[in-house]
C-alpha cells in the first residue's frame, strides 16, 4: 500500500488543448470525456443572443448558419465566452457530477500567463463551486505519465511544437523551445497536397464532408466521383463550419495514410513504404504512393519543406495576453531536431545526459507512424551522438492523453492532497499570488512519491 501511495478523493482532471479537451476522474487510465475544443455558435433570432454548441454532437452536426471557432490558441485559453459552455457540457452533461464534491486539477502549457491561470481558477471556484483546485504544467504531467521525474518532453501539438526540459518535476522555463509547427500546419500541408493536381490525378480532390453529400455512386479506383451535394445545406452552412469539416476529412486521411519516413526523405525511398487506399466522402477512391503520403510530415524535419510552407502558413496568432517566454516565429522556424538539440545544448551539463536518456514524445505528432524513429535518426545525425533514448508508451491512447494521464496520476496520490489550493486559501488576499507559488513550490514531495510509485 505504501508503495502504491494512492488515495482517491474523486478529483477531476481537466486538460484543455487546442485540438481537444479531456476531462475525467483522477486515478483512471483514460479521460471520460474527449471532446473537440471548438464550439459552434448560432445567432438566436428571437433573443438576439448566440447559442453555443459544444462536444462532438454539437460541432460536427450540420446546423444552419453555425459558425465554428476555437477558443484555444497555442494551448492557452483565448476566448473566454465559450469556456463555461465547454465546462458545463463536460461536468453536467457528460460526467453528470456535482462539482462541489470534486476538487479539480487543471493543466496548462508551460508558457501560460498568470491572467489565464487566475481566471480559470476563478471560474472554477465561483461558478462551479469546487472545494479546491490545482494547476500543473502539462509538460510535467507528460513526463509523469511516462514514469519520469526528469525528462525532455517533446510535445508536437496542434498549434505548437515545443521542447520542455523537466528536472525533478520542475519544468525549466528559461530553456523551453517552441515554434508554430504543429499538427494544424501539417493538416494545411496535407490539404495542399490533396487539392493540388498531379500527373496521376489531373483533378484536384474535392474535400466535401459527408454531411454535405446527398448521394454518391460506387466507382472504381481513380474514377471521377459521381455524387450530389445537399444544396440546402450548402447554401446555409457557414464557411467556418465547411472549412472545419473539410479539415476533418484531411485529418482522417492523415490518420489513415499519413506518416513519417524513418530516414532522410527521398521519393524513391518513400515509395518503398507501400501504397495506401483511401475513399473520400464524395466516393472518390484513390491509391496514394509512399512519396505522396509521407511528404506532408516533412515539414517537421526538412528545411526545404519548411521553406515551402512559410509562404502559406497560418496567419500570425493574435494574443490577448502575451504568453511567457519567446516563441520562434514561423519565418524563423527550424526542423524539430534542431529545436531538440538546441534545447539540450542550453541545459546544464550535469542534467544533459539524463535528459538525453529520458526523452518523452507526446502530442498528436507522436501518433504519426515513424515519427519517433525519424526524430531519433535526425538527432543522431545532427549531433553525431547516439545516446538518445525515447520513452514512449506503446498504447495509442496513452500517447494521445499523455498529459491527462500524468494529471490523473498526480491527482490520485495520497501525498498530493496537501497541495490542493482550497477555497479558503484562494479567498485569502494575502495569497493572491498563490498560483505562482504553488506552481513552482511544493513539488518535491510529489516527485518523490511519483518516483516511488512508478
Amino acid at each position: 500500500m505504501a508503495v502504491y501511495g494512492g488515495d482517491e478523493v474523486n478529483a477531476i482532471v481537466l486538460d484543455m488543448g487546442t485540438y481537444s479537451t479531456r476531462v475525467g476522474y483522477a486515478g483512471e487510465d483514460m479521460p471520460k470525456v474527449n471532446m473537440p475544443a471548438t464550439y459552434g455558435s448560432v445567432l438566436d433570432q428571437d433573443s438576439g443572443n448566440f447559442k453555443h454548441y459544444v462536444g462532438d454532437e454539437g460541432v460536427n452536426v450540420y446546423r444552419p448558419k453555425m459558425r465554428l471557432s476555437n477558443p484555444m490558441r497555442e494551448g492557452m485559453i483565448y476566448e473566454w465566452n465559450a469556456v463555461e459552455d465547454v465546462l458545463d457540457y463536460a461536468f453536467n452533461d457528460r460526467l453528470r457530477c456535482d462539482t462541489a464534491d470534486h476538487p479539480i486539477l487543471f493543466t496548462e502549457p508551460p508558457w501560460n500567463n498568470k491572467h489565464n491561470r487566475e481566471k480559470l481558477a476563478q471560474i472554477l471556484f465561483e461558478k462551479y463551486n469546487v472545494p479546491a483546485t490545482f494547476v500543473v504544467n502539462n509538460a510535467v504531467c507528460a513526463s509523469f505519465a511516462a514514469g519520469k521525474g526528469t525528462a525532455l518532453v517533446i510535445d508536437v501539438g496542434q498549434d505548437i511544437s515545443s521542447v520542455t526540459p523537466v528536472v525533478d518535476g520542475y519544468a525549466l522555463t528559461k530553456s523551453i523551445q517552441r515554434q508554430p509547427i504543429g499538427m494544424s500546419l501539417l493538416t494545411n500541408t496535407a490539404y495542399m497536397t490533396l487539392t493540388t493536381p498531379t500527373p496521376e490525378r489531373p483533378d484536384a480532390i474535392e474535400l466535401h464532408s459527408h454531411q454535405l453529400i446527398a448521394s454518391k455512386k460506387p466507382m472504381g479506383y481513380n474514377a471521377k466521383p459521381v455524387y450530389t451535394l445537399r444544396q440546402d445545406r450548402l447554401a446555409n452552412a457557414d464557411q467556418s463550419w465547411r472549412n472545419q469539416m473539410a479539415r476533418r476529412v484531411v485529418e482522417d486521411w492523415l490518420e489513415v495514410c499519413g506518416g513519417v519516413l524513418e530516414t532522410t526523405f527521398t521519393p524513391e525511398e518513400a515509395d518503398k513504404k507501400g501504397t495506401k487506399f483511401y475513399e473520400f466522402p464524395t466516393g472518390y477512391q484513390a491509391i496514394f504512393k509512399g512519396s505522396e503520403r509521407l511528404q506532408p510530415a516533412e515539414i517537421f524535419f526538412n528545411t526545404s519543406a519548411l521553406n515551402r510552407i512559410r509562404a502559406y502558413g497560418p496567419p500570425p496568432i493574435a494574443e490577448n495576453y502575451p504568453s511567457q517566454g519567446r516563441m520562434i516565429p514561423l519565418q524563423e522556424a527550424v526542423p524539430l531536431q534542431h529545436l531538440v538539440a538546441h534545447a539540450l545544448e542550453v541545459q546544464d551539463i550535469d542534467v544533459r545526459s539524463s535528459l538525453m536518456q529520458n526523452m518523452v514524445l507526446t502530442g498528436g505528432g507522436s501518433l504519426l507512424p515513424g515519427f519517433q524513429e525519424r526524430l531519433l535518426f535526425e538527432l543522431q545525425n545532427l549531433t553525431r551522438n547516439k545516446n538518445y533514448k525515447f520513452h514512449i508508451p506503446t498504447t495509442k491512447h496513452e500517447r494521445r492523453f499523455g498529459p491527462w494521464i500524468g494529471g490523473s496520476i498526480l491527482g490520485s496520490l495520497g501525498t498530493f492532497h496537501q497541495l490542493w489550493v482550497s477555497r479558503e486559501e484562494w479567498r485569502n488576499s494575502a495569497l493572491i499570488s498563490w498560483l505562482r507559488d504553488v506552481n513552482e513550490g511544493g513539488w518535491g514531495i510529489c516527485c518523490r512519491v511519483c518516483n516511488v510509485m512508478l
Partner: protein
Amino acid sequence: MTSADVREIVSSLVPSGSTPAPRKAPPPTGTRKPDGISRELYNLIGNAAPTLVAQVSRPKFKARPDLGRARVKWEFREFDNPARKDHLKLHHWQKATDTGAYRFARYNIDSAYITYTDEEYDAIYGTEDAPWTKEDTDYLFRLVREYDQRFIVIVDRWAPPSGIDRPIEELKSRYYTVSRSVLERRLPDDDPDKAQMLANFTFDKEQERKRRDYVTALFKREPEAIEEEEALYIEIKRLEQNERRFTKDREDLLKMLAGVESGLGTLKVEDDGKKKKKSGELSADSPATPGAPPRRAKAEAKYVPADDPINCVVRYDPATVAGPGTKGGIPSVFMRSTRIPVPKPSVAAYVTQILAELQISPNTLVMPTKGDVEKLDSLLNTAGILVEMKRSVDRLDQELRVLKARQKGESVEDAEMEDGDGKGKAGASRLIPGV
C-alpha cells in the same frame, strides 16, 4: 439403449451360428484407477503408473474464498489532512476500523535548511559585501528552501531583485559560504561536530568550474575520438593478457627444461601490473615484448654506489653473468661455489693431476674472493695450456719416430696398413713435412 442392445439387434439380423454371441465383458480385474490421473493416461500405462505422481500431482483447485471471516466495512468519509494549514475537507473511502490521523501526512517532511537573522548577516558581512547584496542573498535562500536545494531549478527560476544573472557555481558558492559562516558563528568552539558540520558546507568554486569544464569537454568528444579511445583501451587489455600468458609460458618452460623455479615469474607479472597502472597508456605504445627487461632495471644497473671499492663490491652487468636460470637478464639465485672455475673437461684429468702435484685443491677455497677466483682461473688456464703443449709435443715425437723408421726401410705395406688404421694420424703425418 446400450451398445450391447445394438449388437443384439444386429446379430438377430445375421443368421445365427455364423458369429458367436458376444460374451459379456469380464469384470475389470485390475486395480482401480487411482485419483489424480486421467483415464486415458491410465489406460496407456496401466498398472505401471508411478504411484508417487498420482499422489503428488493431485489437482489443486483455487482456494475457496474465506467467506466466513468478518467483512471489512468501508466508509466514504470526510478527512482532515494534518499536513495542510487550512481546513480543506476532502472525502475518500476508508476502512471503518481505520481511524488514525491521515496516513500520508507523515510524508510531509522538510529537509533541514539554514536561515540567518538580519543581525547575523550584518555581523558577518556588514555592508561592504561587494558582488552580492542582502536582498539577493535572501532571495537565494528562499529559492533554495523552496526548491529543496535543486540548484539546476534555482538557476532557471533566478530573477533576483538586483537583476544580476549569475551562473550556477556562483549561486552554490554563495549559499555554501554564507551557510558556513553562519554555522561557524553559531556553533560553540567546543562542539565536537563543528569541524564535520563546517566541512559539509565547503565548496570550491574554481574546482567546480574545472569539473564542469572537464565534463563538458568529455561530452563534446567527437564519435571518432570516443571510438579511438575505446579501441586503445581494448588494445591495452589485449597486450596485458598476452604478456601475462607469455610470462606464464616461459616460467613453465623453465621449470620443465632447466628445473629452475626462481619464483620470479609471479614477481614479474605483479611488477608489470604495477607498471601498467602507473604509466597508463604508455604500455600501449610499446611493442609486445614481454621478455625485454624493463627500462627501470637497466637504469639501476648503471648506478654504482660510491663506497663500493671500499667494501670490495664489484658489480657485474647482469647480461654478462647470465648462467642457468637467468630470466630476462636478471640472474636467478645461485650458489657461490658454482662460480669457481672448473678445468675444461678434455683436460680435466691432467689438470687435476697437476694441481695435486702442486698440492692445490679448489676445495680449500671456502669463501673465494675475486682475486682468489681470478688466480685459480689463470692457474687452471695455464695448466690447461701446459697439458695441451705436452700432448702436441708427444704427438710430434711419435711422428718423428715413425718417419725415421720409414726412412730405415720398413716395408710399404706396414706403412699402408698403418695408414688404414688411422686416417687421421696418416693425414697428420702427411701434413707435418709441409710444415
